[in-house]
């Protein structure tokens, strides 16, 4: 499975992308019931080259989902359970004294962050020091230990989860760190029929088997080619202006900011938000069989890309105003501007 995309024609590459994406969704769906939107966003984030923050209570199958996705794509997977006593070296690795041929030497032992897909479970339970250790890895795709920099093999994606309950003793992610996640998706409880399907699958003797789409040796390369294809999708200038207007509309005091934004927000999205919008819209366009972005592609991406980048003020929290509702207002006001 998986042709050499760079030698294929553009049409074949687009078709290949859609096929792989669709099959990956199907394979994950073998073990994960429901949550199709979360799965889609996870794969989208992977092909965008970003990271994803998943918010959900324990027991919804977050770990299983990531593990299934990694197995489907033939990528390596590591899981880190963040706890208050977790140290940075526990994540990125450390130097270990080894002896070979009569010589003692420090040898770097990579931590669990060295994988293609890293699940950081309950990331808000770790101390800021430990959380920040992940930042360099997420942004630079490299870690530095004792002055030595180690590059993380692409593709690299961090999937962090947050537990919205039991917030005592937690360290909410700082805004700077939140901004590094391309998406924040909320994983809700399964619906009754989904729950019944979950019970059927997990309490019986039958075990779902995932069929990998790529061989492990060539999976990273194939994924990187697909990521390159995403970046080849074209965006018209009017749509770029639309994205800019959305970002400006969500920024208090920004150009075109709506009254709700000024009333309820302390800070708006950074330029990373615009980058996330375009990348996500490009993936949406490819999935729709197009090589150019449309307004619908952008609007689809606005809430997951920007919801965690809006910093609500006290009034918003007091009035239970959510960032999603503000974004919906912004989209309604700025919907499909014309040239």
């Amino acid at each position: 499975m998986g042709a050499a995309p760079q030698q294929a024609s553009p049409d074949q590459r687009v078709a290949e992308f859609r096929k792989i994406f669709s099959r990956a969704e199907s394979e994950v769906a073998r073990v994960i019931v429901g949550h199709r939107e979360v799965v889609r966003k996870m794969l989208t984030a992977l092909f965008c080259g970003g990271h994803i923050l998943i918010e959900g209570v324990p027991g919804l199958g977050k770990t299983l989902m990531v593990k299934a996705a990694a197995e489907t794509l033939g990528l390596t997977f590591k899981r880190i359970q963040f706890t208050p006593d977790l140290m940075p070296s526990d994540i990125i690795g450390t130097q270990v004294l080894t002896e070979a041929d009569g010589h003692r030497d420090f040898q770097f032992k990579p931590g669990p962050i060295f994988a293609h897909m890293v699940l950081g479970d309950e990331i808000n339970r770790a101390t800021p020091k430990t959380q920040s250790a992940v930042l360099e890895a997420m942004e630079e795709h490299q870690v530095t230990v004792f002055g030595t920099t180690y590059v993380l093999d692409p593709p690299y994606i961090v999937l962090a989860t947050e537990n919205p309950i039991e917030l005592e003793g937690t360290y909410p992610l700082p805004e700077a760190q939140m901004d590094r996640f391309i998406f924040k998706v909320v994983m809700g409880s399964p619906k009754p029929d989904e729950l019944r399907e979950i019970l059927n699958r997990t309490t019986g003797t039958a075990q779902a088997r995932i069929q990998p789409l790529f061989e492990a040796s060539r999976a990273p390369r194939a994924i990187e080619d697909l990521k390159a294809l995403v970046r080849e999708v074209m965006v018209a200038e009017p749509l770029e202006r639309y994205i800019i207007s959305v970002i400006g509309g969500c920024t208090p005091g920004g150009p075109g900011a709506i009254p709700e934004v000024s009333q309820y927000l302390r800070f708006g999205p950074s330029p990373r938000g615009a980058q996330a919008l375009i990348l996500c819209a490009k993936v949406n366009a490819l999935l729709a069989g197009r090589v150019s972005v449309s307004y619908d592609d952008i609007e689809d991406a606005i809430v997951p890309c920007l919801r965690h980048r809006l910093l609500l003020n006290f009034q918003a929290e007091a009035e239970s105003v959510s960032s999603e509702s503000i974004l919906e207002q912004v989209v309604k006001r700025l919907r499909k501007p014309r040239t």
Partner: protein
Amino acid sequence: MDNPVETIGIASARIARLAAIRAMLCAVAPALTAIALGALLTQIGDVTWTRLGYRLAPERGTVLSLALIGAGIVVLAAGLVMAFRSYRRANDFVAAAAELDERLDCDQEIVTFATLADPSAPESIRARRTPLFPILWRRAIALFGGLDVRREFRLEVGEPLKRSSIFAGVVALAMVLATLGLVRAPTPENTEAAKLRAIAEEIARTSASSDDSALADKIRQAADAIENSKLPPEEKKKRIEEAMREADKAAQKRNNSQSGKNQGTGKSNAQNGNGKSQGQGNSAGAGSGEGKSGTGAGQNPGGGSSGSGKSATGKNSGKNEGGKGSAKNDKNDQNKGDQSNLELHDELAKAEAQVETANAKNPGPDNQPGEDKNQGGASQPADKTNQKGGSQPDPNRPGNIPKPGANGDRNIPAAGGKPKNNKDMGSNLGDTHLGEMPTSTNAQRFLKPGEKGATVDIRDARYVMFRLPGAPSSGSGGKTVLDTDRPTATTGYVNAPLAPTSDDAAPDERQLVPPRYRDMIH
């Protein structure tokens, strides 16, 4: 296979042209409305005058008309500028692609294509083309398949005209407001001038002869003179008299052409007339017009009631003396020309009287006492015999003394104008100003000195009408000469009591006597 770049270019030009036309259309309606209103302001003024009784002063009307036409031209020019700007703004390659995209529902594929394929775009934009661009090109070709730009971008005039009509309505409203601010109630001079113009129009319209055309011109000149406040009264009167002479000339010619009928009429006059037709009553008197016959059986078509002393006058007098009704009058075949001629005479006489009254009321520098000959003599009572002149029945005859409430006794004629036109035109001059004489009902008249008869009780009278002596007729030719000796009001008017104020009389029943007649009440 069409080049999609060319297709977008064609669409861009088409959209630009349509935008220019729409912008122009927005300006056309208000501009045309303003120009049309400006050009037709005179006609609108005439309608206002006819229907509502208000008039727009000519000089103001001219200013307003020019302002409207100017505004219309300015709006047209602004429309042209807007159209040019719209054309330039709409002639945009990417914008046209976006419009096409929207119409063809292409999910912004065309606009993306146009962004990267815009011939006028800098090289840096083209450099953003990716290996996927050929797919976009093919998609654009496929999307444009079967596209007819002319059919896709039609000229829809509905919306621009709708918007334009709002502006046109604003222009019309502004014109109405401006007109309301400029119109005023007509003066008696305006009223007379308008009537004379109407008669002139009627004459010019119904007759093609050069004499009638000359007459119409004279009448118009007279009308202009009446309204012209800069002209001295003598000049006005001169113009009016010229018009009168012209009218007499035209009437004489007409009479000659109808000699057969006139012969019969003359005979009738000889038999029935009593010579009172030679009286010098001025037709400006209200009683000299189309008086109804004694029996009320028929209405004098106008031939016999002219105050200018024509033969027909005698005819009417004789008939009324005998109380035999109007049978002979019916036989008198007066055509419309005669009718209008009589009306014309009547109106000209009224106009002349109006000029004199105005002159008496507002003596200008030229009308200082001692300089105006007419003023000096006018206050003297005229020859009493003149009062018998004209077409009125001889009041000395017992049979002609009218009885209140009796229809058959309505020998005091109605106004010279048409009764249906005698509605109050909204002026504040009361019901008795010129041209608005009411129809006589329950009429009584004063007794002449030495006359015996029932006592006149005018306590509850609504109107008092006066018959003034008309211009003397010089022979049977109908030539009119100015009666310089006729009585003319000279004093300023006061409320002359017609009768002692009665306690039980409602205040609004008291009627003012027109100032120009008050000197005549003894």
